[in-house]
């Protein structure tokens, strides 16, 4: 059988199937297997477990009803936070017939998936795999390393800093800023964008010090806190997460450091517990979810009832919304068609409208500044990690505020 006859055969089969399914909804009733590849062991295991549960929980909900009429199924794979391991489990997932992959923790593993799929999809036409990146925030992934098969659902480091610094612009009591971050790509980028943005928006702010600490190695942050104190900083900007943020804030509380903290990841598993009453009113977070939006709250409450844990990854909701909308639009579950359908697609996220930018596949969405405060009356009554405190939204930025330009020159495959 030569290629020509095969194409004819495939085309006629497809037409037949489409006819029998009643033309419009060829994808209806299909089960979409999504390989979830993130760490379930090691340093970020708690976050991984929380987000995996989030994916599984929403897969159940969306399978009950979604515009495309498809069912979702999550297949978890543990990548131990290593790019090497990521590629080998991705291969295993593909061997099991997976056509969609979701990953979030760490831009290293994300870049490994992008590189792998770029080659794989070119060599295996008709078997392409689509990558939903739900939390890896290195701006390079939608700039110089952008790729057609990669879609980012979180706001990247530069976008969040754009919003955060716009907020800081209005806070006139900020005079001296200290930057403390983890010594790897994300932490270094927070430093870079913080300096750029603040110099542009608030040139009067003085950067009085900066530190890069080894990733997840530091147990005792007291020396750094002493340094921050000596510098006279009134504000600390940090992209730290997990124990690096928990211990930083705990040490600050212990030493009576009175500065405000502007963070990226204060809501991630474990940190809210450490924040406690001492940090109330002093810890800010830039993020893409508003705890007060009714849609988010519905899921947070249901998630808590089921797992006694907090749902804080709004990108997971966007993933399902966008996928089902794109499959409805493409009338297919073929990743190639879905990928084209995703470009420029608008959907309803958990906290407002979202749009997948066509040029670089970076989701454009609202960005929120929230502050750690005592839970109050509705809709501010949510209790994060059962502490009696929560992240209250104090500023909402329209998508254009946080939007950053891209240098992406995307190569697109030929549509089928």
């Amino acid at each position, binding site marked *: 059988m030569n290629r020509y006859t095969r194409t004819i055969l495939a085309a006629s089969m497809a037409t037949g199937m489409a006819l029998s399914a009643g033309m419009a909804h060829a994808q209806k009733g299909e089960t979409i297997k999504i390989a979830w590849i993130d760490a379930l062991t*090691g*340093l970020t*295991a*708690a976050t991984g*477990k929380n987000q995996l549960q989030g994916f599984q929980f929403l897969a159940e909900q969306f399978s009950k009803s979604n515009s495309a009429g498809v069912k979702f199924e999550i297949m978890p794979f543990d990548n131990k936070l290593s790019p090497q391991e990521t590629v080998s489990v991705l291969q295993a997932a593909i061997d099991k017939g997976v056509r969609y992959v979701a990953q979030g923790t760490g831009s290293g593993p994300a870049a490994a998936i992008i590189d792998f799929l770029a080659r794989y999809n070119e060599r295996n036409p008709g078997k392409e795999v689509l990558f939903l990146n739900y939390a890896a925030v290195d701006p390079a992934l939608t700039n110089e390393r952008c790729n057609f098969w990669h879609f980012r659902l979180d706001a990247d480091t530069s976008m969040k800093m754009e919003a955060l610094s716009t907020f800081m612009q209005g806070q006139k009591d900020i005079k001296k800023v200290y930057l403390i971050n983890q*010594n790897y790509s994300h932490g270094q980028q927070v430093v870079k964008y913080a300096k750029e943005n603040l110099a542009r928006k608030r040139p009067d702010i003085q950067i009085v*010090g900066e*530190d*890069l*600490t*080894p990733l*997840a*190695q*530091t*147990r*005792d942050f*007291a*020396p*750094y806190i*002493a*340094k921050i*104190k*000596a510098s006279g900083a009134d504000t600390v900007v940090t992209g730290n997460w997990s*124990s690096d943020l*928990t*211990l930083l804030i*705990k040490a600050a509380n*212990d*030493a*009576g450091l009175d500065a405000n903290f502007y963070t990226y990841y204060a809501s991630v*598993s*474990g940190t809210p*517990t*450490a924040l*406690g009453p001492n940090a109330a009113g002093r810890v800010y977070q830039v993020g893409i979810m508003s705890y007060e939006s009714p849609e988010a709250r519905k899921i947070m409450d249901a998630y808590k009832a089921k797992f006694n844990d907090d749902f804080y990854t709004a990108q997971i909701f966007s993933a399902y919304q966008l996928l089902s909308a794109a499959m409805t639009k493409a009338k297919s579950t073929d990743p190639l068609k879905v990928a084209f359908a995703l470009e420029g697609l608008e959907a309803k996220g958990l906290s407002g409208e979202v749009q997948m930018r066509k040029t670089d596949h970076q989701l454009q969405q609202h960005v929120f500044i929230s502050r750690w405060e005592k839970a109050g009356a509705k809709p501010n009554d949510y209790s994060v990690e059962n502490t009696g405190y929560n992240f209250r939204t104090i500023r909402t930025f329209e998508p254009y505020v946080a939007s950053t330009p891209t240098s992406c020159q995307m190569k697109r495959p030929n549509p089928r």
Partner: protein
Amino acid sequence: MDQVLINILNGISAGLLLFMLSSGLTLIFSMMGVLNFAHTSFYMVGAYLAYSMSQAVGFWPAFLVAPLVVGVMGAVFERYALRKVHKFGHVPELLVTFGLSYVVLEVVKLVWGLSNVPFSPPEVLQGSAFTVMQSSETGLGLMLGAAPKALCVGNDTVKLACSTFPAARFFIMAVAVVMLLFLWLLLTRTRIGLVIQAALTHPEMVEALGHNVPRVLMLVFGSGCALAGLAGVIGGMTFITEPSMAAIVGSIVFVVVVVGGMGSLAGAFVGSLVIGLLQTLPLTVDHSLADAARSLGWAVTPQTFGYPFLKITLSQAAPILPYLLLVLILIFRPKGLLGTRED
């Protein structure tokens, strides 16, 4: 000046906490010739046990009971696992402790979950132990507890700055010093201490005199683990109680033992303080070799050979300094600072 003082105190308290861990490790090593890889696992178990107990019976009973429970667990492990493999030599002994560390880690994850648990110091230890007040007029001042805000605000002529030292850290220092005294008295002033010391060097002779050396070994192993458990209780509440806490202190404790001298209690003490200060003080220095060269009048520019290395500041390099010291000690003084072993 006030921050320098706070930093030194931070360094000493970090060092004393390390000592509580390394003293047990070095005692066990000197008696049994085994480096106990599971030592920091007992540290972690101490923290988690105390957390669970403090939920039920309050902090202070937990603070006393949890280390004892950890000690019993250590003794049981020595009696039924380590002693069995002892006859096959040191490598199996090493491997069995290595295996135990993994078992403990996984069990802890299963029982207490992957995330950190909210284990915080009791009310008394949450505040400040004392406040260091730095005034441009009167110099340094000390005040017990937290100084009222009014005393810390300066005016145009007098500059004032207050720094508080957390009570929990002061507690670490107090417990470690009490423990050090107790250990020293036990080893030098009691009968059992003399037997232990004798068993260190001449086990056959001690056995011939009618002492039960294996039981002494079990006792030492158990006590070492109890000390680790005690360190875990106060370390866990002061810092963080989570599954990776064992791994983070694990590597540094071995550095302490090697730097201080394998098997030397005094060495462990000196080593702990040196490492504690080495982890703390260099962090405050934001100068690099390039800066040093410039101050000597040499022109150092980004084009200079080795600039990426020269521009690293001391605070950036601080986390590797303990390990650098480890390498240097092994090269120039393999028996450690106060070690006695000549082999």
